[in-house]
């Protein structure tokens, strides 16, 4: 994606990675040792040796990242949930979120060169969603003159087939890849009529072409298409009567990225990029069924034009500026009829300056402004300092603001559940007119005080502070520590605006909640001898809803005893924070390999207990029975190169067969697989 003056090293992750070049942290290529914010890289070698198929597989093994199974496999970074984390493929944002969650199992890792993970807010460069962190997936380089073919078979009839092709023809670099992935699904409960995970099949195609045009110009384009089909058979039970509804879910996504790049003597680089991406989702349940069919259509389109110019002012100063426009549209029957078009237009600019003050001290400052049509505009600044008192020690401090724009659901949703409680949810832009309509039809009982404060939603914003140290003892040992704190405000929550005469509640969206996440992340890498590498990571996490903290202090929050059922006042220590957050997470990875390609890995992934949902009526996580059990998962793999063309690997994930039917439905238990690769 970028041609740079920096020497590119191989993907040998057994070396300490301070000279690994990353692009995500500053939108310019920088070696990791010179970046003042928390950043880590997953190499293609780690991806291969871990036996990962989909993006969630590999991210689940990274320190400080949790994969949460809710509307797909979303991630949590620094305690912020999936909707506050930006996922990029080669620098361009992926769309197609459901309830804010971007399902990472849509993304194959079989054509990935590396994954860059930046923690803390980066909205100063990327705009919306870059609050908790940015994950940038960097696909295989074009023009490499290599072709490989891979096939995997695993439990539950899991098949993954892959073809990667990369070639240079004259001055044209080409890359193409195909991936097919399927599973027949599984049931965690024996004799269950409905499967826990339904059968699915997915495919991904990639094509990219890059053309050098003389000395200074380069042009190219990438195209990616992704499709998935999930069978869906739902059994509804009503006092003994079982109604089966057959259906399916279909998701399609495509991206197209043309660009034109200009380089002048390594001093100026300017790139003009277009980006067009679409996401179509269709869910249908047996429309002929007397119990009522279900038909959900969602079509999202995102188009962007952007220029970014990097200017190397001197040896000690670099400046980057950019500007762009986004147009986003959605058609969905979740908001009125499937033909109603909802749009948003965003114009933005950003700038970043990096200055080396002395051989020890560097600062970098950035600022971005997003002007939005459908909601309020937002400024996102960021400042970072790096201090290197010696070759062995690197100190980093950064502060940035992140934001997330209100999504179309929060603006335009128009949903009424006729079965459970007859409740309705209206987006902030349609709530007033819907209330008027219901009132005119004499269906409204009364409105709440909040109904009077319905207004245009503001973006959710956060302030994130990171301070860390990287200590490199010698060529074989490195330790890292980072403390973080994110303060979120204007968080969008649903609240009751009115009651219907039939008792149903009406909800809309408000910028009401404030929350905080803070913690500590530790990491250690140790090389033992020539072949063995140990990696350890740990995260301590504390999260809270600030409004709840205040109410608890005022004595306004109660809980119900498990023993006698009586209510009593809740204390701060009873409060379990935001749901789905584990206080302690840790990993220990053992890896042995040699130059011939033999390898073995053992990876221990630990997660302490986490709050699931309220059971005692106060809407909070507080009681022992509201937590899921903490657990340790062990994954292992071995690799056997057969000859220069054939590579073979086998692995077992979840070796000790840990299962939690209720809270980890996405974990099928022990799974074994065999993977064969042919390199032409």
């Amino acid at each position, binding site marked *: 994606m970028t041609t740079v003056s920096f020497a590119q090293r191989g993907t040998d992750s057994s070396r300490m990675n301070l000279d690994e070049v990353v692009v995500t942290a500053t939108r310019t290529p920088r070696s990791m040792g010179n970046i003042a914010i928390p950043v880590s890289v997953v190499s293609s070698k780690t991806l291969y040796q871990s036996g990962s198929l989909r993006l969630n597989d590999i991210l689940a093994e990274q320190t400080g990242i949790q994969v949460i199974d809710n509307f797909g496999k979303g991630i949590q970074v620094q305690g912020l949930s999936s909707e506050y984390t930006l996922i990029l493929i080669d620098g361009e944002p992926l769309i197609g979120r459901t309830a804010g969650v971007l399902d990472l199992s849509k993304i194959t890792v079989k054509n990935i060169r590396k994954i860059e993970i930046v923690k803390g807010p980066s909205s100063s460069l990327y705009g919306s969603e870059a609050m908790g962190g940015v994950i940038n997936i960097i696909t295989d380089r074009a023009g490499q003159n290599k072709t490989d073919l891979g096939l995997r078979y695993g439990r539950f009839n899991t098949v993954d087939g892959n073809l990667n092709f990369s070639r240079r023809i004259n001055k044209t670099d080409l890359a193409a890849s195909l991936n097919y992935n399927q599973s027949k699904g599984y049931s965690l409960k024996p004799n269950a009529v409905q499967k826990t995970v339904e059968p699915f099949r997915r495919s991904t195609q990639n094509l990219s072409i890059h053309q050098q045009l003389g000395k200074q110009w380069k042009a190219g384009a990438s195209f990616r298409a992704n499709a998935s089909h999930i069978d869906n058979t739902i059994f509804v*039970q*009503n*006092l*003994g009567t079982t109604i089966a509804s057959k259906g399916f879910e279909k998701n399609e996504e495509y991206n197209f990225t043309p660009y034109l790049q200009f380089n002048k003597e390594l001093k100026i680089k300017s790139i003009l990029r277009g980006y067009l991406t679409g996401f179509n989702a269709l869910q249908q349940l047996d429309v002929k069924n007397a*119990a009522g069919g279900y038909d959900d259509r969602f079509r999202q389109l995102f188009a962007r034009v952007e220029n970014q110019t990097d200017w190397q002012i001197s040896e000690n100063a670099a400046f980057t500026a950019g500007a762009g426009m986004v147009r986003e549209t959605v058609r969905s029957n979740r908001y009125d009829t499937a033909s109603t078009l909802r749009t948003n237009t965003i114009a933005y600019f950003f700038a970043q300056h990096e200055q080396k003050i002395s051989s020890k001290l560097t600062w970098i400052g950035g600022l971005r402004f997003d002007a939005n049509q459908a909601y309020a505009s937002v400024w996102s600044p960021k400042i970072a300092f790096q201090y290197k008192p010696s070759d062995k020690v690197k100190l980093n401090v950064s502060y940035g603001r992140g934001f997330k724009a209100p999504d179309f659901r929060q603006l335009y949703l128009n949903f009424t*559940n006729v079965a*459970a*409680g007859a*409740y309705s949810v209206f987006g902030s832009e349609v709530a007033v007119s819907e209330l008027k309509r219901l009132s005119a039809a004499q269906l409204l*009982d009364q409105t709440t005080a909040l109904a009077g404060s319905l207004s245009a939603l503001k973006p959710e914003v956060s302030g994130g502070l990171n301070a860390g140290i990287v200590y490199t003892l010698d060529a074989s040992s490195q330790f890292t520590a980072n403390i973080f704190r994110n303060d979120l405000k204007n968080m969008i929550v649903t609240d*009751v605006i009115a*009651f219907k005469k039939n*008792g149903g*509640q009406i909800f809309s969206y408000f910028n009401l909640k404030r929350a905080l996440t803070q913690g500590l992340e530790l990491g250690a890498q140790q090389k033992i001898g020539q072949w063995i590498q140990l990696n350890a990571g740990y995260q301590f996490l504390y999260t809270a809803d600030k409004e709840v903290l205040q109410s608890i202090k005022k004595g*306004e*929050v*109660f*809980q*119900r005893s498990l023993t006698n*059922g*009586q*209510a*009593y*006042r809740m204390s701060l220590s009873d409060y379990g924070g935001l749901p789905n957050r584990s206080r302690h997470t840790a990993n220990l990875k053992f890896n042995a390999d040699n130059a011939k390609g033999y390898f073995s890995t053992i990876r221990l992934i630990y997660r302490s207990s986490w709050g699931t*949902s*309220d*059971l*005692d*009526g*106060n*809407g909070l996580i507080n009681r022992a029975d509201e937590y899921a059990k903490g657990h340790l998962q062990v994954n292992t793999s071995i690799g056997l190169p057969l000859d220069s063309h054939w590579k073979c690997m086998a692995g077992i994930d979840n070796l000790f067969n840990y299962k939690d039917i*209720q809270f980890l439905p996405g974990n099928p238990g022990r799974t074994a697989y065999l993977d064969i690769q042919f390199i032409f």
Partner: protein
Amino acid sequence: MRSSRIIGSAMLALVVFQACKKNEAPVVVPTLTEKTVSGIPADTIVGLVNGQPVGAGRYTFFSFETNAVVPSTDSNSVKWDVAVRGTTIITNGGNSGPGAGGAFVYVGTFDDVKAVPKDSIFRQDNAPTSYAVPNTSNRGWYVYSPVTMLITPIPGRVLVFKTAKGKYAKVEILNYYKGGVTPAATATDAEKLKNQRYYTFRFAYQADGTMNFK
């Protein structure tokens, strides 16, 4: 503040009382009863109509004074104080009964209500539009989860009642399911429906007509 004033005036009354009859030992009759009641059916589910669970439409009547269920034949009398049907709680007053009853929802623990605050306003039933104890989710005494389809009493809600005969009682609802045990979130819909509409609650009833629960 309020409760200390009440205690103060009670002590003053005691002093006056003792001053008049200083030669006789005062006879202390306990007037406050505190009980926990369970298994009060509240129009339990008898079947499905249009796929929706329904009961027979009957209230169960209860008297704080006698700590017993009152037969429905006495529904037009002041023998009952409170009646339950599903999540709806009615008082013997307003358009629900001939008594002087009313109620309001107090936010706090059962023990916090040491006396009925003097400036309390007892709401009255105006069925079916409004009830002294609001009968919708998250507005009165319970919360309904559309996810688990379970009804849970909100902790820290005390229902303060004026009885049919104008006396005072306070109630904490502990559970809405048979045996006082809420089914697991993973239980079947049938199990959740079959076991619902059974009240477990504790109450304190002051027989002497004062507002004290001490």
